[in-house]
Protein backbone atom coordinates (compact mmCIF):
# COMPACT_ATOMS: atom_id res chain seq x y z
CA UNK A 1 0.00 0.00 0.00
CA UNK A 2 1.37 3.37 -0.92
CA UNK A 3 2.27 5.78 1.84
CA UNK A 4 0.31 8.95 1.94
CA UNK A 5 1.75 12.29 0.86
CA UNK A 6 2.91 14.19 3.92
CA UNK A 7 0.60 17.04 4.63
CA UNK A 8 1.82 19.96 6.61
CA UNK A 9 -0.11 23.02 7.55
CA UNK A 10 1.03 26.14 5.84
CA UNK A 11 -0.22 29.63 6.38
CA UNK A 12 1.58 31.07 3.40
CA UNK A 13 -0.56 32.40 0.62
CA UNK A 14 0.40 31.97 -2.97
CA UNK A 15 1.82 35.45 -3.31
CA UNK A 16 0.61 36.87 -6.59
CA UNK A 17 -2.54 34.86 -6.84
CA UNK A 18 -5.79 35.30 -5.12
CA UNK A 19 -6.78 31.70 -5.66
CA UNK A 20 -5.32 29.25 -3.24
CA UNK A 21 -4.43 26.05 -5.10
CA UNK A 22 -7.32 23.67 -4.73
CA UNK A 23 -5.02 21.02 -3.36
CA UNK A 24 -1.41 20.31 -2.61
CA UNK A 25 0.05 18.12 -5.28
CA UNK A 26 2.66 15.49 -4.56
CA UNK A 27 5.32 14.01 -6.78
CA UNK A 28 5.36 10.29 -7.20
CA UNK A 29 6.14 7.45 -9.53
CA UNK A 30 3.46 5.98 -11.76
CA UNK A 31 3.88 2.48 -13.08
CA UNK A 32 2.01 1.66 -16.25
CA UNK A 33 -0.55 -1.02 -15.36
CA UNK A 34 -2.75 -0.70 -18.41
CA UNK A 35 -2.33 0.91 -21.78
CA UNK A 36 -4.77 0.37 -24.61
CA UNK A 37 -6.05 1.98 -27.74
CA UNK A 38 -9.24 3.87 -26.99
CA UNK A 39 -9.99 5.25 -30.42
CA UNK A 40 -8.11 6.37 -33.50
CA UNK A 41 -5.10 8.31 -32.21
CA UNK A 42 -6.30 8.09 -28.62
CA UNK A 43 -5.24 5.72 -25.88
CA UNK A 44 -6.15 4.91 -22.33
CA UNK A 45 -3.31 4.98 -19.83
CA UNK A 46 -3.60 3.71 -16.31
CA UNK A 47 -0.89 4.15 -13.72
CA UNK A 48 -0.39 2.69 -10.26
CA UNK A 49 1.02 5.41 -8.04
CA UNK A 50 3.55 4.70 -5.35
CA UNK A 51 2.28 7.52 -3.13
CA UNK A 52 -1.30 8.25 -2.25
CA UNK A 53 -2.06 11.80 -3.36
CA UNK A 54 -4.95 13.93 -2.24
CA UNK A 55 -8.03 12.74 -4.05
CA UNK A 56 -8.25 14.55 -7.35
CA UNK A 57 -11.41 16.36 -8.31
CA UNK A 58 -12.81 16.42 -11.83
CA UNK A 59 -11.08 19.02 -13.97
CA UNK A 60 -7.80 18.75 -12.14
CA UNK A 61 -4.79 17.50 -13.99
CA UNK A 62 -1.52 15.72 -13.45
CA UNK A 63 1.89 16.51 -14.88
CA UNK A 64 3.31 13.33 -16.39
CA UNK A 65 6.88 12.90 -17.60
CA UNK A 66 9.66 10.51 -18.41
CA UNK A 67 12.18 9.43 -15.84
CA UNK A 68 14.62 7.70 -18.15
CA UNK A 69 15.30 10.47 -20.64
CA UNK A 70 15.46 14.25 -20.79
CA UNK A 71 14.09 14.35 -24.32
CA UNK A 72 11.20 15.15 -24.03
CA UNK A 73 12.16 17.26 -21.06
CA UNK A 74 9.00 18.78 -19.68
CA UNK A 75 6.15 16.94 -18.04
CA UNK A 76 2.90 16.93 -20.00
CA UNK A 77 -0.36 18.12 -18.46
CA UNK A 78 -3.08 15.48 -18.61
CA UNK A 79 -6.57 15.69 -17.21
CA UNK A 80 -7.38 13.07 -14.63
CA UNK A 81 -10.03 10.77 -16.10
CA UNK A 82 -10.24 8.23 -13.32
CA UNK A 83 -8.95 7.72 -9.84
CA UNK A 84 -9.31 4.79 -7.51
CA UNK A 85 -7.71 4.37 -4.15
CA UNK A 86 -8.04 1.12 -2.29
CA UNK A 87 -6.15 -0.88 0.24
CA UNK A 88 -3.93 -2.35 -2.45
CA UNK A 89 -2.81 0.96 -3.83
CA UNK A 90 -4.10 3.69 -6.02
CA UNK A 91 -4.64 4.02 -9.73
CA UNK A 92 -5.08 7.00 -11.96
CA UNK A 93 -6.37 6.86 -15.53
CA UNK A 94 -5.87 9.20 -18.48
CA UNK A 95 -7.24 9.48 -21.96
CA UNK A 96 -4.45 10.72 -24.18
CA UNK A 97 -4.50 11.93 -27.77
CA UNK A 98 -1.29 11.43 -29.68
CA UNK A 99 -0.17 14.87 -30.70
CA UNK A 100 3.60 15.26 -30.68
CA UNK A 101 6.81 13.83 -29.33
CA UNK A 102 5.68 13.39 -25.74
CA UNK A 103 2.31 11.81 -26.28
CA UNK A 104 3.76 9.56 -28.99
CA UNK A 105 6.36 8.23 -26.57
CA UNK A 106 3.72 7.80 -23.91
CA UNK A 107 1.69 5.74 -26.33
CA UNK A 108 4.65 3.41 -26.72
CA UNK A 109 5.03 2.78 -23.00
CA UNK A 110 4.62 -0.81 -21.89
CA UNK A 111 3.33 -2.29 -18.69
CA UNK A 112 5.87 -1.83 -15.96
CA UNK A 113 7.26 1.36 -17.43
CA UNK A 114 7.71 4.02 -14.73
CA UNK A 115 6.70 7.60 -15.22
CA UNK A 116 7.02 10.76 -13.19
CA UNK A 117 3.66 12.00 -11.91
CA UNK A 118 2.82 15.21 -10.08
CA UNK A 119 -0.78 15.13 -8.99
CA UNK A 120 -3.34 16.68 -8.49
CA UNK A 121 -3.02 20.20 -9.86
CA UNK A 122 -5.26 23.14 -10.67
CA UNK A 123 -8.87 24.07 -10.14
CA UNK A 124 -11.72 21.66 -10.50
CA UNK A 125 -15.16 21.83 -12.12
CA UNK A 126 -16.64 20.79 -8.83
CA UNK A 127 -16.24 24.13 -7.13
CA UNK A 128 -18.73 25.47 -9.67
CA UNK A 129 -21.39 22.99 -8.60
CA UNK A 130 -23.82 23.84 -5.87
CA UNK A 131 -25.51 21.10 -3.82
CA UNK A 132 -28.81 22.16 -5.37
CA UNK A 133 -27.57 21.73 -8.90
CA UNK A 134 -30.23 19.89 -10.93
CA UNK A 135 -28.55 19.38 -14.25
CA UNK A 136 -24.94 19.31 -15.43
CA UNK A 137 -24.30 19.32 -19.12
CA UNK A 138 -20.80 18.42 -20.11
CA UNK A 139 -19.70 19.35 -23.60
CA UNK A 140 -16.55 17.68 -24.83
CA UNK A 141 -14.63 17.90 -28.07
CA UNK A 142 -12.17 15.13 -28.86
CA UNK A 143 -9.91 14.19 -26.01
CA UNK A 144 -11.48 17.05 -24.03
CA UNK A 145 -13.80 14.31 -22.84
CA UNK A 146 -11.09 13.12 -20.43
CA UNK A 147 -12.02 15.30 -17.42
CA UNK A 148 -15.71 14.59 -18.08
CA UNK A 149 -15.16 10.91 -17.37
CA UNK A 150 -14.18 11.74 -13.83
CA UNK A 151 -16.84 14.45 -13.63
CA UNK A 152 -19.52 11.91 -14.50
CA UNK A 153 -18.43 9.77 -11.57
CA UNK A 154 -17.93 12.53 -9.04
CA UNK A 155 -20.99 14.60 -9.75
CA UNK A 156 -23.24 12.17 -8.00
CA UNK A 157 -21.22 12.53 -4.82
CA UNK A 158 -21.44 16.30 -4.86
CA UNK A 159 -24.96 16.86 -6.14
CA UNK A 160 -26.82 13.60 -5.75
CA UNK A 161 -29.91 15.12 -7.33
CA UNK A 162 -28.26 16.37 -10.47
CA UNK A 163 -28.60 14.57 -13.72
CA UNK A 164 -25.50 14.45 -15.86
CA UNK A 165 -25.56 14.68 -19.64
CA UNK A 166 -22.54 14.40 -21.86
CA UNK A 167 -22.52 15.92 -25.32
CA UNK A 168 -19.45 14.50 -26.99
CA UNK A 169 -18.13 15.35 -30.42
CA UNK A 170 -15.36 14.05 -32.60
CA UNK A 171 -14.47 14.13 -36.26
CA UNK A 172 -15.44 10.55 -36.93
CA UNK A 173 -16.83 7.54 -35.11
CA UNK A 174 -13.35 6.01 -35.05
CA UNK A 175 -12.09 8.88 -32.92
CA UNK A 176 -14.69 8.42 -30.20
CA UNK A 177 -13.31 6.87 -27.02
CA UNK A 178 -16.71 5.63 -25.88
CA UNK A 179 -15.51 2.51 -24.16
CA UNK A 180 -13.77 4.46 -21.44
CA UNK A 181 -16.54 6.90 -20.60
CA UNK A 182 -18.23 4.66 -18.06
CA UNK A 183 -21.51 6.16 -19.26
CA UNK A 184 -24.52 4.81 -21.09
CA UNK A 185 -27.33 7.08 -20.07
CA UNK A 186 -27.31 10.70 -21.02
CA UNK A 187 -24.71 10.42 -23.75
CA UNK A 188 -25.28 12.46 -26.90
CA UNK A 189 -22.74 11.95 -29.64
CA UNK A 190 -21.89 14.16 -32.59
CA UNK A 191 -19.50 13.36 -35.40
CA UNK A 192 -18.52 15.77 -38.11
CA UNK A 193 -18.94 13.17 -40.82
CA UNK A 194 -22.13 11.76 -39.30
CA UNK A 195 -20.61 8.32 -38.87
CA UNK A 196 -22.22 8.20 -35.44
CA UNK A 197 -24.95 10.19 -33.74
CA UNK A 198 -25.70 13.76 -34.70
CA UNK A 199 -23.99 14.88 -37.87
CA UNK A 200 -22.04 18.05 -37.22
CA UNK A 201 -19.96 19.73 -34.60
CA UNK A 202 -20.71 19.26 -30.95
CA UNK A 203 -21.56 22.96 -30.68
CA UNK A 204 -24.20 22.46 -33.32
CA UNK A 205 -25.50 19.59 -31.26
CA UNK A 206 -25.71 21.92 -28.26
CA UNK A 207 -27.68 24.38 -30.35
CA UNK A 208 -29.96 21.60 -31.60
CA UNK A 209 -30.54 20.16 -28.17
CA UNK A 210 -30.98 23.57 -26.60
CA UNK A 211 -34.05 22.28 -24.92
CA UNK A 212 -31.86 20.30 -22.57
CA UNK A 213 -30.53 23.54 -21.19
CA UNK A 214 -33.92 24.94 -20.47
CA UNK A 215 -35.19 22.01 -18.51
CA UNK A 216 -34.51 21.56 -14.86
CA UNK A 217 -35.67 25.03 -14.07
CA UNK A 218 -33.10 26.82 -16.14
CA UNK A 219 -30.44 26.08 -13.61
CA UNK A 220 -28.44 23.84 -15.91
CA UNK A 221 -24.73 24.48 -15.97
CA UNK A 222 -22.54 23.75 -18.93
CA UNK A 223 -19.04 22.45 -18.38
CA UNK A 224 -16.85 22.24 -21.44
CA UNK A 225 -13.46 21.04 -22.54
CA UNK A 226 -12.08 20.77 -26.04
CA UNK A 227 -10.33 22.70 -28.77
CA UNK A 228 -10.33 26.46 -28.50
CA UNK A 229 -12.65 27.04 -31.49
CA UNK A 230 -15.22 24.83 -29.82
CA UNK A 231 -14.97 26.72 -26.55
CA UNK A 232 -15.20 30.01 -28.38
CA UNK A 233 -18.31 28.97 -30.25
CA UNK A 234 -19.83 27.60 -27.07
CA UNK A 235 -19.25 30.88 -25.32
CA UNK A 236 -21.12 32.64 -28.10
CA UNK A 237 -24.00 30.27 -27.48
CA UNK A 238 -23.81 30.88 -23.73
CA UNK A 239 -24.01 34.60 -24.27
CA UNK A 240 -26.88 34.24 -26.70
CA UNK A 241 -28.87 31.73 -24.69
CA UNK A 242 -27.72 32.95 -21.30
CA UNK A 243 -26.54 29.77 -19.73
CA UNK A 244 -23.69 29.39 -17.26
CA UNK A 245 -20.56 28.14 -18.92
CA UNK A 246 -17.45 26.85 -17.22
CA UNK A 247 -14.56 25.86 -19.46
CA UNK A 248 -11.29 24.01 -19.12
CA UNK A 249 -8.34 25.18 -21.20
CA UNK A 250 -5.57 22.99 -22.53
CA UNK A 251 -3.04 25.74 -23.14
CA UNK A 252 0.66 24.96 -23.09
CA UNK A 253 2.31 24.77 -19.69
CA UNK A 254 5.85 24.76 -18.44
CA UNK A 255 5.73 23.40 -14.92
CA UNK A 256 2.06 23.22 -13.93
CA UNK A 257 3.10 24.17 -10.41
CA UNK A 258 2.98 27.93 -10.46
CA UNK A 259 6.74 28.44 -10.61
CA UNK A 260 7.50 29.58 -14.13
CA UNK A 261 4.76 31.97 -15.32
CA UNK A 262 4.84 30.05 -18.57
CA UNK A 263 1.09 29.47 -18.72
CA UNK A 264 0.05 33.12 -18.63
CA UNK A 265 -3.41 33.84 -19.98
CA UNK A 266 -5.04 37.21 -20.09
CA UNK A 267 -8.28 37.59 -18.16
CA UNK A 268 -11.14 40.04 -18.65
CA UNK A 269 -9.29 42.73 -16.72
CA UNK A 270 -6.32 42.41 -19.05
CA UNK A 271 -4.17 40.81 -16.37
CA UNK A 272 -2.09 37.73 -16.94
CA UNK A 273 -3.14 34.87 -14.70
CA UNK A 274 -1.49 31.50 -14.34
CA UNK A 275 -3.60 28.94 -16.11
CA UNK A 276 -2.06 26.16 -14.03
CA UNK A 277 -3.28 27.63 -10.76
CA UNK A 278 -6.17 29.89 -11.64
CA UNK A 279 -7.29 27.28 -14.20
CA UNK A 280 -7.45 25.11 -16.15
CA UNK A 281 -11.14 25.34 -15.24
CA UNK A 282 -12.44 28.90 -15.46
CA UNK A 283 -15.75 30.63 -15.56
CA UNK A 284 -16.30 31.66 -19.16
CA UNK A 285 -17.14 35.15 -17.94
CA UNK A 286 -13.62 35.64 -16.66
CA UNK A 287 -12.12 34.98 -20.06
CA UNK A 288 -11.28 37.61 -22.65
CA UNK A 289 -12.51 35.57 -25.59
CA UNK A 290 -11.80 38.04 -28.33
CA UNK A 291 -8.21 38.55 -27.30
CA UNK A 292 -7.68 34.88 -26.67
CA UNK A 293 -8.64 33.87 -30.14
CA UNK A 294 -7.51 36.98 -31.95
CA UNK A 295 -4.04 37.02 -30.57
CA UNK A 296 -3.58 33.38 -31.25
CA UNK A 297 -2.35 33.14 -27.72
CA UNK A 298 -3.41 29.60 -27.23
CA UNK A 299 -1.75 28.53 -30.43
CA UNK A 300 -0.16 25.79 -28.38
CA UNK A 301 -3.57 24.18 -28.25
CA UNK A 302 -3.08 23.25 -31.87
CA UNK A 303 -5.77 25.72 -32.85
CA UNK A 304 -5.72 27.19 -36.32
CA UNK A 305 -9.01 28.91 -35.70
CA UNK A 306 -9.49 32.48 -36.88
CA UNK A 307 -12.77 33.99 -35.73
CA UNK A 308 -14.68 35.46 -38.62
Amino acid at each position, binding site marked *: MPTSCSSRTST*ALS*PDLSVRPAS*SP*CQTEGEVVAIAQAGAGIFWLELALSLLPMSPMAGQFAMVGFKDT*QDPLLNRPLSIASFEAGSTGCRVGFLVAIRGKGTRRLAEARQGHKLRVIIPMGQSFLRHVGPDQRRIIAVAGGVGVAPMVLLGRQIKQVSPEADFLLLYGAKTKAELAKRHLGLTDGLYVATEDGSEGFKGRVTELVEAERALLLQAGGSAKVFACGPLPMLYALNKLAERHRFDLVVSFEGPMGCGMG*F*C*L*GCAMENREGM*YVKLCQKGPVMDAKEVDWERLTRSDELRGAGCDFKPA
Partner: protein
Amino acid sequence: MTSNRLEVTFLGKTIKNPIVAASGCYGYGLEQPELLPPEAFGAITLKGLSATPKRGNPPPRIAETPCGMLNSIGLENVGIEAFAKNTWPHLRGLGVPIIANFFGDDETEFQKAAQMLSDLEGLFAMELNLSCPNKPQWGRILASDPKVASRLVRLIKPLCRYPLIVKLSPNVASISEVAKACEDSGADALSLINTLLGMAIDVDAKSSRLGTRFGGLSGPSIYPIALRMVSEVSRAVRIPIVGMGGVSSPEDAIGMMLAGASLVGVGTLLLVNPFGVEEIKQGMLAYLDRHGLEKVACLQGRL
Protein backbone atom coordinates in the same frame (compact mmCIF):
# COMPACT_ATOMS: atom_id res chain seq x y z
CA MET B 1 24.14 14.00 11.76
CA THR B 2 25.06 13.93 8.14
CA SER B 3 23.36 17.12 7.22
CA ASN B 4 26.17 19.53 8.00
CA ARG B 5 28.41 17.69 5.58
CA LEU B 6 26.63 19.68 2.91
CA GLU B 7 27.32 23.01 4.59
CA VAL B 8 29.16 25.64 2.61
CA THR B 9 30.21 29.19 3.34
CA PHE B 10 29.11 31.88 0.96
CA LEU B 11 29.54 35.61 1.39
CA GLY B 12 30.46 35.10 5.01
CA LYS B 13 27.40 33.09 5.86
CA THR B 14 27.01 29.40 6.52
CA ILE B 15 24.56 27.90 4.06
CA LYS B 16 23.15 24.52 4.94
CA ASN B 17 23.54 23.03 1.49
CA PRO B 18 24.90 24.36 -1.79
CA ILE B 19 21.67 24.03 -3.79
CA VAL B 20 20.01 27.32 -4.69
CA ALA B 21 16.73 27.84 -6.47
CA ALA B 22 17.55 29.83 -9.62
CA SER B 23 15.57 32.97 -10.32
CA GLY B 24 12.29 32.53 -12.15
CA CYS B 25 11.98 28.79 -11.59
CA TYR B 26 10.67 28.75 -8.07
CA GLY B 27 8.34 31.73 -8.20
CA TYR B 28 8.42 33.67 -4.96
CA GLY B 29 9.22 30.61 -2.91
CA LEU B 30 5.73 30.01 -1.54
CA GLU B 31 3.89 28.42 -4.45
CA GLN B 32 4.29 24.79 -3.43
CA PRO B 33 5.17 24.59 0.24
CA GLU B 34 4.43 20.88 0.41
CA LEU B 35 5.58 19.59 -2.94
CA LEU B 36 8.89 21.38 -2.74
CA PRO B 37 9.37 23.15 0.59
CA PRO B 38 11.58 26.23 0.63
CA GLU B 39 13.62 24.60 3.39
CA ALA B 40 14.95 22.08 0.87
CA PHE B 41 17.29 24.75 -0.49
CA GLY B 42 20.45 26.27 0.85
CA ALA B 43 19.11 29.56 -0.47
CA ILE B 44 16.32 30.76 -2.73
CA THR B 45 16.59 33.26 -5.51
CA LEU B 46 13.28 34.95 -6.21
CA LYS B 47 11.74 35.65 -9.58
CA GLY B 48 13.17 38.90 -10.91
CA LEU B 49 11.66 42.00 -9.29
CA SER B 50 11.50 45.58 -10.48
CA ALA B 51 10.50 48.89 -8.95
CA THR B 52 7.19 48.87 -10.81
CA PRO B 53 5.10 45.84 -11.82
CA LYS B 54 5.83 44.38 -15.26
CA ARG B 55 3.38 42.58 -17.50
CA GLY B 56 5.87 40.33 -19.21
CA ASN B 57 5.51 39.01 -22.74
CA PRO B 58 2.52 37.66 -24.62
CA PRO B 59 2.01 33.88 -24.63
CA PRO B 60 3.04 31.31 -25.68
CA ARG B 61 5.96 31.79 -23.35
CA ILE B 62 7.43 28.30 -23.26
CA ALA B 63 8.64 26.05 -26.06
CA GLU B 64 10.34 22.77 -25.50
CA THR B 65 13.55 22.01 -27.38
CA PRO B 66 15.82 18.94 -27.34
CA CYS B 67 16.78 18.46 -23.68
CA GLY B 68 15.92 22.07 -23.07
CA MET B 69 13.30 24.76 -23.20
CA LEU B 70 12.94 28.30 -24.40
CA ASN B 71 11.17 30.86 -22.28
CA SER B 72 10.06 34.35 -23.10
CA ILE B 73 8.44 35.24 -19.79
CA GLY B 74 9.87 38.73 -20.08
CA LEU B 75 10.31 39.31 -16.35
CA GLU B 76 6.65 39.57 -15.44
CA ASN B 77 6.48 40.53 -11.80
CA VAL B 78 4.29 42.18 -9.23
CA GLY B 79 6.74 44.96 -8.45
CA ILE B 80 8.77 45.36 -5.28
CA GLU B 81 6.10 47.29 -3.44
CA ALA B 82 3.44 44.59 -3.73
CA PHE B 83 6.06 41.96 -3.07
CA ALA B 84 7.21 43.73 0.10
CA LYS B 85 3.68 44.01 1.35
CA ASN B 86 2.12 40.68 0.41
CA THR B 87 4.89 38.17 0.07
CA TRP B 88 7.93 39.22 2.03
CA PRO B 89 6.27 38.86 5.43
CA HIS B 90 5.51 35.20 4.64
CA LEU B 91 8.95 34.49 3.25
CA ARG B 92 11.07 36.17 5.89
CA GLY B 93 10.15 33.87 8.68
CA LEU B 94 11.18 30.68 6.93
CA GLY B 95 14.79 30.90 7.93
CA VAL B 96 15.99 30.20 4.40
CA PRO B 97 18.44 32.76 3.00
CA ILE B 98 16.65 34.76 0.33
CA ILE B 99 18.36 36.30 -2.68
CA ALA B 100 16.30 38.96 -4.44
CA ASN B 101 16.90 39.01 -8.17
CA PHE B 102 16.19 42.44 -9.66
CA PHE B 103 16.31 44.56 -12.78
CA GLY B 104 15.00 47.73 -14.35
CA ASP B 105 14.09 48.85 -17.82
CA ASP B 106 16.60 51.68 -17.58
CA GLU B 107 19.33 52.90 -15.24
CA THR B 108 16.99 54.86 -13.03
CA GLU B 109 14.74 51.87 -12.57
CA PHE B 110 17.73 49.69 -11.77
CA GLN B 111 18.76 52.15 -9.08
CA LYS B 112 15.25 52.45 -7.75
CA ALA B 113 14.91 48.67 -7.46
CA ALA B 114 18.23 48.42 -5.62
CA GLN B 115 17.08 51.06 -3.16
CA MET B 116 13.69 49.51 -2.59
CA LEU B 117 15.16 46.08 -1.95
CA SER B 118 17.67 47.60 0.44
CA ASP B 119 14.74 48.85 2.44
CA LEU B 120 13.59 45.30 3.13
CA GLU B 121 14.68 43.73 6.38
CA GLY B 122 16.41 40.39 6.38
CA LEU B 123 17.44 39.68 2.81
CA PHE B 124 20.51 37.55 2.35
CA ALA B 125 21.72 39.04 -0.91
CA MET B 126 20.65 40.86 -4.05
CA GLU B 127 21.18 39.49 -7.53
CA LEU B 128 21.55 42.01 -10.30
CA ASN B 129 20.11 40.65 -13.52
CA LEU B 130 22.06 42.11 -16.43
CA SER B 131 21.58 39.04 -18.53
CA CYS B 132 17.93 38.49 -19.39
CA PRO B 133 17.64 37.80 -23.11
CA ASN B 134 13.98 38.88 -23.11
CA LYS B 135 14.42 42.63 -22.58
CA PRO B 136 14.22 44.48 -25.86
CA GLN B 137 13.98 47.60 -23.68
CA TRP B 138 17.68 47.20 -22.92
CA GLY B 139 18.67 47.37 -26.57
CA ARG B 140 21.04 44.48 -25.95
CA ILE B 141 21.86 42.05 -23.20
CA LEU B 142 23.60 44.32 -20.73
CA ALA B 143 26.05 41.70 -19.50
CA SER B 144 27.28 41.02 -23.01
CA ASP B 145 29.49 44.10 -22.89
CA PRO B 146 32.06 44.41 -20.09
CA LYS B 147 31.89 48.21 -20.17
CA VAL B 148 28.14 48.38 -19.88
CA ALA B 149 28.13 45.78 -17.12
CA SER B 150 30.86 47.55 -15.24
CA ARG B 151 29.07 50.88 -15.44
CA LEU B 152 25.87 49.42 -14.03
CA VAL B 153 27.60 47.59 -11.21
CA ARG B 154 29.38 50.77 -10.16
CA LEU B 155 26.13 52.67 -10.26
CA ILE B 156 24.18 50.14 -8.26
CA LYS B 157 26.64 48.67 -5.77
CA PRO B 158 26.68 51.77 -3.52
CA LEU B 159 22.89 51.56 -3.17
CA CYS B 160 22.87 47.98 -1.95
CA ARG B 161 22.54 47.22 1.70
CA TYR B 162 23.07 43.52 1.04
CA PRO B 163 25.86 41.71 -0.79
CA LEU B 164 25.59 42.12 -4.53
CA ILE B 165 25.65 39.10 -6.83
CA VAL B 166 25.87 39.95 -10.52
CA LYS B 167 24.25 37.53 -12.92
CA LEU B 168 26.18 37.01 -16.13
CA SER B 169 25.07 36.14 -19.62
CA PRO B 170 26.47 33.31 -21.75
CA ASN B 171 25.78 35.33 -24.89
CA VAL B 172 29.29 36.75 -25.01
CA ALA B 173 32.64 36.11 -26.65
CA SER B 174 34.51 36.08 -23.36
CA ILE B 175 32.56 35.67 -20.17
CA SER B 176 35.67 36.00 -18.01
CA GLU B 177 36.23 39.49 -19.36
CA VAL B 178 32.78 40.51 -18.19
CA ALA B 179 33.30 38.65 -14.93
CA LYS B 180 36.51 40.53 -14.23
CA ALA B 181 34.91 43.83 -15.10
CA CYS B 182 32.13 43.12 -12.59
CA GLU B 183 34.59 42.05 -9.91
CA ASP B 184 36.62 45.18 -10.43
CA SER B 185 33.49 47.28 -10.22
CA GLY B 186 32.55 45.96 -6.80
CA ALA B 187 30.47 42.80 -7.29
CA ASP B 188 30.59 40.59 -4.20
CA ALA B 189 29.81 37.42 -6.12
CA LEU B 190 28.82 36.27 -9.59
CA SER B 191 26.10 33.97 -10.76
CA LEU B 192 26.19 32.31 -14.14
CA ILE B 193 24.77 31.42 -16.52
CA ASN B 194 21.53 33.00 -17.53
CA THR B 195 19.81 31.60 -20.63
CA LEU B 196 21.20 31.50 -24.15
CA LEU B 197 19.29 33.46 -26.74
CA GLY B 198 17.45 30.99 -28.94
CA MET B 199 14.50 30.50 -31.24
CA ALA B 200 11.92 27.88 -32.11
CA ILE B 201 9.76 27.83 -35.21
CA ASP B 202 6.41 26.24 -35.85
CA VAL B 203 7.12 25.31 -39.45
CA ASP B 204 3.50 24.70 -40.33
CA ALA B 205 2.35 28.06 -38.95
CA LYS B 206 5.55 29.65 -40.31
CA SER B 207 5.94 31.59 -37.09
CA SER B 208 7.77 31.58 -33.81
CA ARG B 209 6.60 29.02 -31.31
CA LEU B 210 6.82 31.80 -28.73
CA GLY B 211 4.81 34.99 -28.52
CA THR B 212 8.09 36.80 -29.12
CA ARG B 213 10.65 36.17 -31.84
CA PHE B 214 13.35 34.87 -29.52
CA GLY B 215 13.55 33.32 -26.09
CA GLY B 216 16.07 32.11 -23.55
CA LEU B 217 17.36 28.54 -23.66
CA SER B 218 17.75 26.65 -20.39
CA GLY B 219 17.88 23.06 -19.19
CA PRO B 220 20.23 20.08 -19.57
CA SER B 221 21.17 21.01 -23.13
CA ILE B 222 23.13 24.05 -21.93
CA TYR B 223 24.97 22.31 -19.09
CA PRO B 224 28.23 21.77 -21.03
CA ILE B 225 28.34 25.48 -21.89
CA ALA B 226 27.55 26.54 -18.33
CA LEU B 227 30.16 24.22 -16.89
CA ARG B 228 32.82 25.56 -19.22
CA MET B 229 31.93 29.14 -18.31
CA VAL B 230 32.02 28.45 -14.58
CA SER B 231 35.40 26.80 -15.02
CA GLU B 232 36.68 29.76 -17.03
CA VAL B 233 35.34 32.43 -14.70
CA SER B 234 36.51 30.68 -11.55
CA ARG B 235 40.07 30.99 -12.83
CA ALA B 236 39.60 34.62 -13.74
CA VAL B 237 38.12 36.07 -10.56
CA ARG B 238 38.46 35.66 -6.81
CA ILE B 239 34.89 36.38 -5.76
CA PRO B 240 32.64 33.36 -5.27
CA ILE B 241 30.42 31.92 -7.97
CA VAL B 242 26.90 30.56 -8.06
CA GLY B 243 27.16 28.05 -10.90
CA MET B 244 24.02 27.18 -12.82
CA GLY B 245 22.70 26.17 -16.20
CA GLY B 246 21.18 22.79 -16.90
CA VAL B 247 22.05 21.12 -13.61
CA SER B 248 19.80 18.08 -13.33
CA SER B 249 21.67 15.37 -11.42
CA PRO B 250 24.03 14.96 -8.48
CA GLU B 251 26.90 14.53 -10.96
CA ASP B 252 26.02 17.81 -12.66
CA ALA B 253 25.99 19.64 -9.34
CA ILE B 254 29.27 18.06 -8.25
CA GLY B 255 30.77 18.97 -11.62
CA MET B 256 29.80 22.60 -11.09
CA MET B 257 31.57 22.64 -7.74
CA LEU B 258 34.65 20.89 -9.11
CA ALA B 259 34.72 23.53 -11.82
CA GLY B 260 34.79 26.23 -9.18
CA ALA B 261 31.26 27.09 -8.08
CA SER B 262 30.57 27.76 -4.38
CA LEU B 263 26.84 27.29 -4.76
CA VAL B 264 24.90 25.47 -7.44
CA GLY B 265 21.74 26.93 -8.94
CA VAL B 266 18.92 24.80 -10.26
CA GLY B 267 16.27 26.30 -12.49
CA THR B 268 14.63 24.21 -15.16
CA LEU B 269 15.07 21.12 -12.99
CA LEU B 270 12.52 22.54 -10.56
CA LEU B 271 9.96 22.88 -13.34
CA VAL B 272 10.38 19.23 -14.25
CA ASN B 273 11.43 17.26 -11.23
CA PRO B 274 11.03 19.06 -7.89
CA PHE B 275 12.23 15.94 -6.12
CA GLY B 276 15.53 16.41 -7.96
CA VAL B 277 16.69 18.76 -5.19
CA GLU B 278 16.56 15.91 -2.72
CA GLU B 279 18.17 13.54 -5.23
CA ILE B 280 21.07 15.94 -5.68
CA LYS B 281 21.65 16.31 -1.96
CA GLN B 282 21.52 12.55 -1.39
CA GLY B 283 23.77 11.96 -4.38
CA MET B 284 26.29 14.46 -3.04
CA LEU B 285 26.41 12.67 0.29
CA ALA B 286 26.91 9.34 -1.46
CA TYR B 287 29.71 10.85 -3.49
CA LEU B 288 31.40 12.19 -0.37
CA ASP B 289 31.26 8.73 1.15
CA ARG B 290 32.57 7.08 -2.00
CA HIS B 291 35.50 9.44 -2.19
CA GLY B 292 36.21 9.57 1.52
CA LEU B 293 35.52 13.27 1.72
CA GLU B 294 34.26 15.01 4.79
CA LYS B 295 32.35 17.94 3.37
CA VAL B 296 30.95 19.02 0.07
CA ALA B 297 32.91 22.23 0.43
CA CYS B 298 36.06 20.17 -0.25
CA LEU B 299 34.96 19.73 -3.85
CA GLN B 300 35.13 23.32 -4.80
CA GLY B 301 37.52 24.07 -7.63
CA ARG B 302 39.22 20.70 -7.31
CA LEU B 303 39.49 20.18 -11.02
